[in-house]
């Protein structure tokens, strides 16, 4: 995955990202860490095209992230599963494939089952979101993100609403997805997951990139901010 960020700034009521520049190539999974309010979620949302930056340009794999075409080519997993509550896990996927990707009914169904099985939900496909556990629902939403065959999958603290057991269950499933060959960009507070899944880590601090590098920087931080952050890890 190629990431090219130039002079990226973003503000809501206050400025959350300050003139970011980033140029990365060939990493398959990138983890973004930092304290709440450091701008990591905003950065992820801008990279995914969910939000347009106030100023600056962001290009992923040579596409401008504000283009409609790019937006349709990425998957996004939210903090909560955000499945449509009136549809079964399978329908949550087939509806999107049929209506927004023009896929035939049968093909959509096969595709949905394939990805739900990949996330170990083969026996839950006909259940409503309210009738499965939080971890299963979150895995289904990951399957939904995968089903459109995205070039990049963004995960925004996908386990922050889950207890440790369900967190483990979801993150193990994500790790297995490495075999799909997809690129991942994720925000997570679970450091063991960041260490084992990320090929590259970006530490955000006060709307700027505090430090970045391979996961080994977590063990040998060179900035006082990251050292401070890592010392507070539970």
């Amino acid at each position, binding site marked *: 995955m190629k990431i090219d960020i130039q002079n990226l700034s973003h503000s809501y009521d206050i400025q959350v990202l300050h003139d970011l520049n980033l140029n990365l190539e060939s990493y398959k999974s990138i983890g973004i860490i930092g304290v709440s309010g450091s701008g990591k979620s905003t950065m992820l949302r801008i990279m995914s095209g*969910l939000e347009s930056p106030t100023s600056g340009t962001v290009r992923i794999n040579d596409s401008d992230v504000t283009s*409609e075409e790019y*937006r*349709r080519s990425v998957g*996004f997993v*939210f903090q*909560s599963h*955000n499945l*449509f*509550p*009136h549809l079964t896990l399978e329908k949550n996927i087939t*509806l*999107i494939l049929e*209506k*927004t990707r023009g896929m035939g009914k049968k093909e959509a169904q096969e595709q949905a089952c394939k990805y739900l099985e990949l996330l170990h939900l083969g026996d839950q496909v006909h259940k*409503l979101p*309210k009738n499965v556990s939080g971890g299963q629902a979150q895995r289904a939403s990951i399957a939904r993100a995968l089903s*459109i065959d995205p070039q990049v999958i963004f995960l925004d603290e996908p386990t922050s609403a889950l207890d440790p057991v369900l967190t483990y269950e979801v993150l193990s499933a994500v790790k297995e997805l490495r075999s799909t060959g997809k690129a991942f960009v994720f925000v997570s507070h679970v450091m063991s997951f960041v260490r084992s899944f990320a090929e590259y880590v970006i530490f955000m601090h006060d709307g700027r990139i505090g430090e970045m590098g391979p996961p080994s920087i977590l063990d040998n931080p060179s900035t006082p901010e990251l050292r401070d952050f890592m010392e507070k890890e539970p």
Partner: protein
Amino acid sequence: MGQISQELLKPDRGRRGPSATAVSYLLVLAVFGALAWFVVARQNRPFDMSTIAPYALNIAEGLGLTIRASVIALVGSTVLGFVFYLLSSSSSKFCRAFTDVFTEIIYGTPLLVMIMLMAFVIGPAFGTTSRQFMGQLGLVIYMTPYMTNIFKSAISSVGQEQYMVMDLFGFTPFQRYRYIIIPQVIRILMPPLMNNFSLIIKGSALLNVLSYRDLFYEIALMTNNTFRFVEGFLLMWGLYLLITIPLSQLTKWIDRKWGL
């Protein structure tokens, strides 16, 4: 002693099987049955339903009119309630203020007062002498803000995150309504809508003050002729419950089956 404490330690203590539940309900029904028997037995005339049998047809017609008036009020207030919902969520400050004031006025008005006002004050001002029509319209208008309210809460229950997901996958506006918003809103809307239907059925009894020949009117008229108050009013009560209780059970069932 040992056995008792074993029983207390069971994790599902307090949860009884379906048969125990059925027994509890039967017991409660028996208590109410005994109360009814007591009330009937204390009257100074023997209880005799056959005395009101000749009026069966009139009562059935009254029941039919009660249902008709209620269905009209349900449909009317649902449509009008939706229009008011649109007004209350419009960008026009006037429209929002209008629905706010309207709601406050209706919430503060007793239904009986509403019906009398419509029939005797507002109707004539608009040149209509049909009190029953105005009474029916009063019931519709009285229920409108309650309907607006359930539209509001049902439509707002489709959370912001779901709109984000629809954006993300590129749903067209038509697809959003057709596949995501309306199907959810209908499921959320059904139980409170049916509760309101029950309110309407009960409220429709007040239309009798305008000589609307509904269930209440027919039976009250019959008791005036026969002096069979006990039989008449117990039958009336039973008939209302015969509609409203199954309705509320159906509502609960739908909520369980469809609830999100």
